[in-house]
């Protein structure tokens, strides 16, 4: 099962190395990690999308993360109301009439063309991972020359509904 885990960490040098080293040593499968600064100086936020086989493995993952000295808080937000987004940059081949066609494809995704050259264009898309994935699938026939994704970053919505929701299912990651 896929889970989205967030961690609040002390922004020390080597903290990413510590965390990824631990995950690797303990044989956890990580789909993506994103790291960046937070609202507090000196504190960074990490978002992990992980593939775990069972609840016991998941518990180990959060406990091992928590055990890191630099990790202040770990949350599994998969079953909470949350916002989860990633960004992808996609460079596709295309000139002349193809460009218009591609523009037609990306518009419903609210993606934008951020660079154009003689025979390629670069598209930026942000959103839930399944939306990003859907656009990539649609663009594949045009020849993807280069692709890069940031990995998911996520946090809880401002308000949690009384009833538990499983937002993750809605984008089936």
């Amino acid at each position, binding site marked *: 099962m896929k889970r989205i885990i967030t961690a609040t960490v002390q922004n020390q*040098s080597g903290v990413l190395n510590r965390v990824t080293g631990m995950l690797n*040593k303990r044989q956890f499968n990580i789909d993506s990690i994103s790291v960046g600064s937070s609202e507090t100086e000196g504190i960074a936020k990490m978002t992990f999308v992980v593939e775990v086989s069972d609840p*016991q493995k998941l518990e*180990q993952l959060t*406990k*091992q993360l*928590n*055990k*890191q*000295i630099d990790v202040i808080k770990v949350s599994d937000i998969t079953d909470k109301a949350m916002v989860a987004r990633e960004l992808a940059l996609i460079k596709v081949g295309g000139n002349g009439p193809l460009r218009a066609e591609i523009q037609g494809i990306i518009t419903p995704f609210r993606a934008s063309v951020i660079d154009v050259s003689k025979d390629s264009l670069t598209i930026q898309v942000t959103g839930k991972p399944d939306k990003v994935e859907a656009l990539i699938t649609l663009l594949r026939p045009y020849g993807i020359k280069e692709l890069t994704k940031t990995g998911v970053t996520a946090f809880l919505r401002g308000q949690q509904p009384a009833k538990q929701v499983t937002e993750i299912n809605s984008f089936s990651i």
Partner: protein
Amino acid sequence: MKAEVKQEVERAKEMITGADLLIESLADAQVDTVFGYPGGAVLPIYDALYRSEAPFKHILSRHEQGSIHAAEGYARVTGKPGVVLATSGPGATNLITGITDAMMDSLPLVIFTGQVAKGVIGTDAFQESDVMGITTPITKYNYQVSQLSELPRIVKEAFHIASTGRPGPVVVDIPKNISQELTPPNFKNDFYLPGYQPTKRPNPLQIRKLADALSRSKKPMLLTGAGAVFAKASEELKDFAEKFQLPVANTLLGLGGFPGTNGLSLGMAGMHGTYAANMGMYEADLLINIGARFDDRLTGNLEHFAPHAKVAHIDIDPAEIGKNVPTAIPVVGDAKEALQALLDSPIDQPDHQAWKEKLLNNKRDYPLWYERSTDVISPQWLTEQVYRMSEGEAIITTDVGQHQMWAAQYYAFDKPNRWVTSGGLGTMGFGFPAAIGAQLGAPEDLVVALVGDGGFQMTLQELSVLKEKNLPVKVIIVNNEALGMVRQWQESFYEERYSESIIANPDFVKLAESYGIRGMKVDKEEDVASVLEDIFDYDGPVVVDCRVEQKECVYPMIAPGKGIHEMIGVTK
């Protein structure tokens, strides 16, 4: 103008080096012994040590591995952090086995490594190694000092992290420019670690659950590990076991946490544990684990481990709970506090008389056994003699392997912190240097290094330290001219193909003598008692080459992949 210059001169006089600051910080941390070895990147630190009147002694090893195993022995015996100092590059990499060993066995160490100057870090400079990269996975935490002003705080944090919660090794990497830099005396060492707040006090609700489970249990049993020893919980453990008449099994590293000669003790559990301990865990309906981590050498095949038991687990490290064995009652906290909370709880006596008798009958009916050889010394018998002649009061250190298992089986430790062995990592060459640290930590006690002929040869250069410091460590080489456990597995599982496990040894007597140390050899049973009496009375270091039966095997045994109820070699 003149006044300003004078002021400047005064200030310059007060300046100290980073190395001086380090020495002051160590003194502030109440360090009494440093185990180390000098080298280029730590020259400023060794110079500061030379110039200072530091209230601690420095023990010069002959290999950095010797330093760190000695620090481990010191930490195990005193409960205080062992302190190590080594240079950059090879000095630091020579520590790796010891750091990993300390990490696996939760020993508090603070290790200072020199580093090349900040300006050349990352350029593959002479004697540069990526200490942070290398030690991140094998330490509880590590630091590289990037500004001298941080040093006092880092040192204080390092000791705090190493010695609190679940203890472990902490590395502090100090670039040479930092230890050379001048600074006004600065001892600002306040720290705040929001991500490190170990839970000591157990949750009362969980204690209640455990109390209820105990009062309802028909087949309760205790398993205690090193966590109980680190928590100094031996008294509470004994009170708790006796109050509720609970049979107790120890893990290898938990030996001594509960008195081995107590009527409720079932001895060691696990691969070479007793029948009573292992069958107890197999049949129990409530298994209360106090500070053990359910290591694979303890549990055997997890499918067959404690299959009928509700498992309760008291551990200061939450990540150990539920890691290997599903746990119904997790209790995060210090073993001493948890046991005290249980002792303070009203708990109905469980109705388990029949069960208790069954386990104690198992203990009586299936004792450890061996065939005593008629012409050669049996290693088990030798271990029993060491126990008898030292009246069970010695501090015993070992390497890993057969002699270690026999020590665990036949030396009944009644007190904690007397048993110094490499459990998790299983490090050959650990026992002898660890005995040096143990002796320094407990100068009044009899320290016996029971080592294998293989393991001893990995770190025997430390004999120089024994001689130099005249430490009265008794080294007993359980010499079977083989890598005994390797040989045993080849006999049992590789159709007696003894691949590279039968070894040729030096003359250990002459070897000891070449270091200026008394050397002795024993190869007859009738001489053992007098030799042991002699060396235990002798006020100085001795090396005894004790020739034992080569083909002896450690039994009973749970073969790899088997369950704890599938022991072999339980009876003759």
